């Protein structure tokens, strides 16, 4: 595995009974890149993500992250190694403020959950403020999480994932249900994360404009397999890919 490949999958397979949700997937995700996985609904994208984060165990194949094998490892182990997925927005802390939500995640990561004595947590608060800046939620820091708009809640989700200091961030349809304005904000955030934080990002998306706008590489999935993989412009130009998409997407 070359130096700049952070995540590598070979022959990854996951079956449910006789149904092959993921059927022999090869994937190389380079460090610091934005790698999109696209495909019609049911192509296996979500299952693939679950295999990567450890929610599902592979039926066959290998998975390497940062040079180490992670196939079959439990979720929290993989998360601590630095492979983190940002959840759907409904998994937030409704009545905590944005800042407190981040602080809670940071306290957990630093293992200081039983700390009764600390008065000020300067380092933690600095980290929280930095995270707020990164995702652009500083003006909303004191707002209750449940009062945020959908787009801002997704940004909070990304911040919570970032609090885990990931090396690789998985985003499952980050712009789903967002207005054009919110989508643009999310897209800019993802770009910033890759460029400024040198974060590796894998995202699954339906919005082609987003995908080809910011991705370095694109993998196209269909019926559990990767049918095309390469730099974004190449994949875009690939007529087979477009046929599949235009055939099944609106």
């Amino acid at each position, binding site marked *: 595995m070359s130096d700049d490949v952070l995540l590598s999958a070979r022959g990854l397979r996951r079956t449910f009974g006789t149904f092959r949700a993921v059927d022999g997937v090869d994937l190389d995700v380079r460090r610091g890149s934005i790698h999109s996985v696209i495909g019609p609904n049911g192509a296996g994208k979500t299952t693939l993500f679950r295999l990567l984060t450890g929610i599902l165990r592979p039926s066959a194949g290998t998975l390497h992250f940062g040079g180490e094998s992670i196939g079959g490892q439990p*979720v*929290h182990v993989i*998360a*601590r190694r630095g492979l983190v997925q940002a*959840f759907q927005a409904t*998994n*937030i*802390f*409704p*009545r*905590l*403020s944005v*800042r*407190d*939500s981040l*602080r*809670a*995640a940071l*306290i*957990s*990561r630093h293992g*200081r*959950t*039983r*700390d*009764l*004595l*600390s*008065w*000020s*947590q*300067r380092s*933690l*608060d600095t980290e929280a403020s930095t995270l707020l800046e990164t995702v652009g939620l500083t*003006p*909303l*820091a*004191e707002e*209750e999480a*449940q*009062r*945020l*708009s*959908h*787009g*801002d809640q997704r940004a909070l989700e990304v911040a919570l994932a970032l609090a*885990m200091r990931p090396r690789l961030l998985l985003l499952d349809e980050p712009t789903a249900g967002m207005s054009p304005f919110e989508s643009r904000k999310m897209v800019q955030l993802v770009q910033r994360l890759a460029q400024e934080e040198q974060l590796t990002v894998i995202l699954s998306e339906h919005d082609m404009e987003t995908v080809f706008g910011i991705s370095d590489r694109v993998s196209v999935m269909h019926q559990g397999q990767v049918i095309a993989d390469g730099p974004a412009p190449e994949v875009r130009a690939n007529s087979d890919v477009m046929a599949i998409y235009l055939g099944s997407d609106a």
Partner: protein
Amino acid sequence: MTMYGPSGVDVGDPSEGSVDPAETPARPPGRTELVPRLLGPIALVVVMAALGFLLSDNVLLTLQEVLALAVFATATNLLLGQAGLVSFGQAVFYGLGAYTVALGWLHWQLPFWATFVMAPLLGALVAVPIGLVALRARRLYFALSTLAFSELAYQLAESRYDFTKGANGVFGAFVPTALTYPRTGYLFVLAVTVASLLLLWKVNHSPFGLVLRAIRENRGRMQALGVNVYLHQLLAFVISGAFCALAGAMFVVYSQSSYPELLDWTTSGGPVFMAVIGGMGTFLGPAVGAFIYQFGHDELVRYVSDWQLVLGVVLLVIVMFWPDGLLGGLGRLARLLRKRRGDR
């Protein structure tokens, strides 16, 4: 420019027990910010101490009871408002604290100072097995389990006549003479109350306190973040138990007796009641609730025999129309006004 979703409008339930940002500091207070914030509470304490020299004996005695209940309610709110654990069994610890003082004197002639210190320690100790069992049940079943423990404790106290003197209760001179004078008793109880509330405040504002609230908001998420939720809830239960027991020992200064009813589930319901009236989402809410509840009770009992009716109606009205409680509602009003001023 950000948009606020429909959840920005209050529809009763989401606002219940909301943590009042006015109570939780946005950033930890820096040295220079701390002084003005402390001014209010310090002034309050000074005033209350001064009242010890101004008020009549009767009122001072009532205040002793109220202060004990304030600690009881605040300690209960660590579970209720902070951890989101509804316990109808904190009276187990309250009664345990009272009985520790009473029985320590009765059976082993232990001095008050020793039993007073033992009370919270025993409370913490007993909280461990109770918590280990009760916390295995979720939410509603946890509440019922704690209710069962409360009744169990009441049963035991009532039936073990040889040890606890049964339904008669324990009476005696276990409180040192000095503390039997209303003024000294009041000042002592006030001092312990201030110390207890300070410690409980510290717990709320520690990383642990935030973790408790986060667990309350999203248990699964915290588990995914690697937090042992069961353990943290147990820790909260133990801390609450300790302070509830301390409150029980404080109560003895006022009552100079201990009896089984201190352990039953209706006594457990009291601090829950007080926390709801005053505001579960604020730190001082339960204490305010205790004041209202007990003064209400004592004053009502004098003029009106229907104190239960009035209290019941008040609780019902608050539960139905004003779920944030007194302080919570005021806090929300203040924030609303601040926001309006800010928008302009």
